[in-house]
């Protein structure tokens, strides 16, 4: 039996087209793997529609018709992405029985390239969290260890991709939600340039930060899936086409003072020192950068994101769809009961923070202050990318913790320190596996590039792999 999960997508599609195996065989293989999986990474497999889709693809191949770039590729989507006729619950009680009434733009694009969506992945409720343990349907376990967090919020997507339950998974990334679990499970993920992937059909968390992100076991597959997902969409006024930026032969690599002055808090920082050394020896340039808002960005992030969250969560009032409380005293009580019964604690916390920072007496000092910080950070990054092509940081300072070790929300928020800057500035960021940490769990490296340098980051990744040898 072929271990399909070991093939890269290009090879897989080629062999499928050569009829070495059928899409039906492939789908059955992955569905059975999902059923046996004990990590709770997949909330539901779409057996019926996946098998139906497989038959169509097999017929297409048999008839010699032209097939798409992702022909027969089994893909798992995060539970906040709409696949018409299938449940999309954002891992919340609020939407437990909600069936997506239409396709997300990215789902349309994946299907147009003949991908097969085989299931929906667990996640932190409404994409709020860092560890993958805040799902209303139980925590996701790490692909490498049942005792460790999968990371979040695209916990199921990353864990499933890393444990070979699919050839690629789609997550979403608001502050590191795809990159953190990718790093902790030892796979690749890219948070694309803001706007290049349509948000239409993805339950919004923080609208000015959210981007859907492909997760896969190698860079090439990740890049291929991204190329299918992106493009300006008529349903999303903030969506844009990519204007690819290229790097020169001699890479200019950003070394941010504010990141590396905390070396002792970064696991295996010596490995990074070695990498910088090797890159320099290969003729690339290391550029020293001073980004003052690097440290304060987190504060601003946890003001603006909750503000947008509280607004985006306002539609869940129990009237038109989703869960509704039996409380019927009056509309006010009905709202309160519906929302407190069906939102989890982290969602409620962020809604409350959001409401607090936007209160009339706080909006100027706190909310607008955070917006100013965000604008300054954007400027600083724009300046930095005049001097360098991309910046190297860890994805998270540490490897995945053991389940139960992270109890304080603040402790969780700090994990996002390096990832949030990409969402704050709209820049693309690629997460690359970077060996293992102190207890043998995977670590990830992050390449942060200028807007529209997504493809260039994949090209740079090859050189970095050389330098790591």
């Amino acid at each position: 039996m072929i271990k399909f999960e070991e093939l890269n997508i290009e090879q897989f599609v080629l062999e499928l087209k050569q009829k070495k195996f059928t899409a039906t065989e492939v789908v059955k293989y992955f569905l059975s793997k999902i059923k046996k999986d004990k990590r709770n990474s997949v909330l539901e497999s779409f057996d019926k529609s996946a098998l139906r889709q497989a038959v169509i693809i097999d017929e297409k191949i048999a008839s010699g018709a032209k097939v798409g770039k992702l022909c027969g590729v089994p893909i798992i989507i995060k539970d906040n992405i709409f696949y018409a006729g299938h449940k999309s619950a954002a891992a919340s009680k609020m939407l437990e029985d909600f069936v997506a009434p239409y396709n997300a733009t990215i789902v349309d694009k994946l299907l147009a390239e003949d991908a097969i969506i085989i299931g929906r992945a667990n996640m932190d409720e409404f994409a709020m969290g860092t560890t993958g343990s805040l799902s209303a349907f139980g925590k996701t376990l790490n692909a490498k260890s049942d005792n460790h967090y999968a990371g979040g919020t695209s916990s199921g997507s990353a864990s499933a991709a890393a444990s070979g339950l699919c050839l690629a998974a789609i997550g979403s990334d608001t502050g590191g939600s795809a990159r953190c679990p990718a790093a902790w499970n030892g796979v690749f993920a890219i948070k694309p340039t803001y706007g290049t992937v349509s948000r239409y059909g993805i339950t919004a968390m923080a609208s000015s930060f959210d981007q859907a992100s492909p997760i896969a076991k190698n860079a090439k597959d990740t890049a291929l899936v991204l190329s299918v997902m992106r493009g300006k969409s008529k349903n999303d006024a903030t969506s844009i086409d990519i204007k690819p930026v290229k790097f020169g032969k001699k890479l200019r690599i950003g070394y941010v003072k504010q990141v590396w002055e905390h070396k002792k808090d970064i696991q295996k920082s010596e490995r990074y020192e070695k990498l910088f050394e090797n890159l320099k020896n290969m003729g690339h340039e290391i550029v020293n950068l001073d980004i003052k808002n690097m440290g304060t960005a987190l504060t601003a992030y946890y003001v603006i994101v909750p503000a947008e969250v509280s607004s985006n969560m306002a539609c869940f009032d129990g009237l038109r769809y989703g869960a509704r409380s039996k409380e019927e005293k009056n509309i006010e009580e009905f709202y309160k009961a519906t929302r407190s019964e069906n939102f989890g604690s982290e969602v409620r916390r962020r809604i409350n923070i959001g409401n607090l920072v936007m209160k009339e007496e706080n909006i100027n000092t706190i909310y607008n202050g955070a917006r100013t910080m965000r604008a300054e950070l954007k400027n600083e990054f724009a300046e930095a990318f005049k001097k360098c092509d991309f910046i190297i940081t860890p994805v998270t300072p540490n490897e995945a913790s053991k389940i139960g070790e992270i109890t304080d929300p603040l402790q969780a928020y700090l994990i996002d320190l390096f990832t949030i800057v990409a969402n704050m500035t709209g820049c693309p960021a690629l997460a690359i596996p970077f060996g293992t940490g102190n207890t043998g769990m995977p670590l990830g490296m992050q390449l942060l590039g200028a807007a529209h340098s997504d493809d260039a980051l994949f090209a740079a990744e090859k050189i970095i792999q050389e330098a790591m040898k």
Partner: protein
Amino acid sequence: MSKYEVTIGLEIHAELNTKTKAFCGCANEYGAKPNTNVCHVCLAIPGTLPLINRAAVEKTIAAGLAIDCKINDIAVFERKHYFYPDLAKGYQISQLEKPICLGGGIKLGTGKFIRLNRIHLEEDAGKLLHNAVSQISLVDYNRGGVPLIEIVTEPDIANATEAVEFLEEVRQRLVYAGVAECRMEQGGMRCDVNISLKPKGAKKLGNRCEVKNLNSFKSVARAIEYEAKRQSELLDKGETISVQTRKWDEGAGKTTLMRDKGEAYDYRYFPDPDIYPIRITDRDVAEIKVAMPKLAHELKTQFVTEFGLPEYDAHVLTKNKLLAHFYLDCVTLLKEPKAVSNWTMVDIGKMMNDANTDVPPVTPAQLTEIIKMAMDKTITKTIGLELLQKVSGDSRKSPKKIAKDMGLLDGVSDAEIKKIFEAVKKDKPALVDDFKNNPQKVLPFIIGQVMKNTRGRAKSEIVEKLAKEFFK
């Protein structure tokens, strides 16, 4: 009462007459079956995103130009948050910091200028339908997302008369600019009144109350008068006015408390991340200005200076946009401005009044054909009016053809006239003597009889000539 000065500011909402809603492709249409003009976007299904309707922005700009506003070069949409069943998203897309239009204003008949603060674009909410029998409330989201402009004045208005005059002028300008229908009975135009009292001559404004739920200009006037009285009585008693939102009760003729300042809602405005700020260039504004239909006062000036109409005619004709344009079209077909004005103002006006409509019942071609026939005395005015009734409501009917079919265009022979004389004489033999004594006294009667019997086909000078011969 006279101890106090009343200060009034208005917030006027008008629904724009775009084909589609402000942020989705649903039809913007009044009176459709509940929840038929809805989609994933205006029902706030997760994952949906608003798409700004350019026509709504353009119409807001046109509204601004009609009231002499400055058009902002950047307009920002913000989210205004509150929970209510008719508001699907839990927030309304509106504008706060950077509305599309700023400033502007309207000069009243007295010469007093009422300043505008702004005009911004937002979306309307759905409608709640309460069923008293079944004790349930239902929501109709058809109106949810319909583009709405909010026109906010400075507190420059001093009494109900000024308020109503201002409102009438605003309505007229919006209708003429072609941006809104302003049908108050359909909720197409609504108004909130902010009203406060201060001692005469005082600089500082008193605490104000906002009165909501005013659905006619009459209610606005009544509510202002009621509030001015209520507040002055409280002040007379030495009490302070608390800042309140009050609701007008049309039946009871009074305002009642909705909420106190302590309960003031914090809307937590912030720029909508789903809609980027829109840039409005001078060229955009110029293009909209050129394409804008003429406003009432511009047409009035044209009617007086170009057509030589009396001020009164021009005023009456421009009260209703459709009538004004109807008149304009008629004059293009028949260069007899005053005659056309008389027929339009009086006769067409009466027909519209009787039918309780603001749409002229005939086409300009039909009316001018009738006026032409009346002017060359082919028909009498009475017949003309009869023809108007006959073609009313059917633009395909030709008054000339009807007149012809009725034989009204055929001449009348002398013999036929004499026959009528015979009949008249038979009926009133005394007429012959009367004629001999004072022909001028009875001639009108005789002519009248002939006209009646020939349905006005006879020419009065011929009848007169023949009568003189017949009765002498």
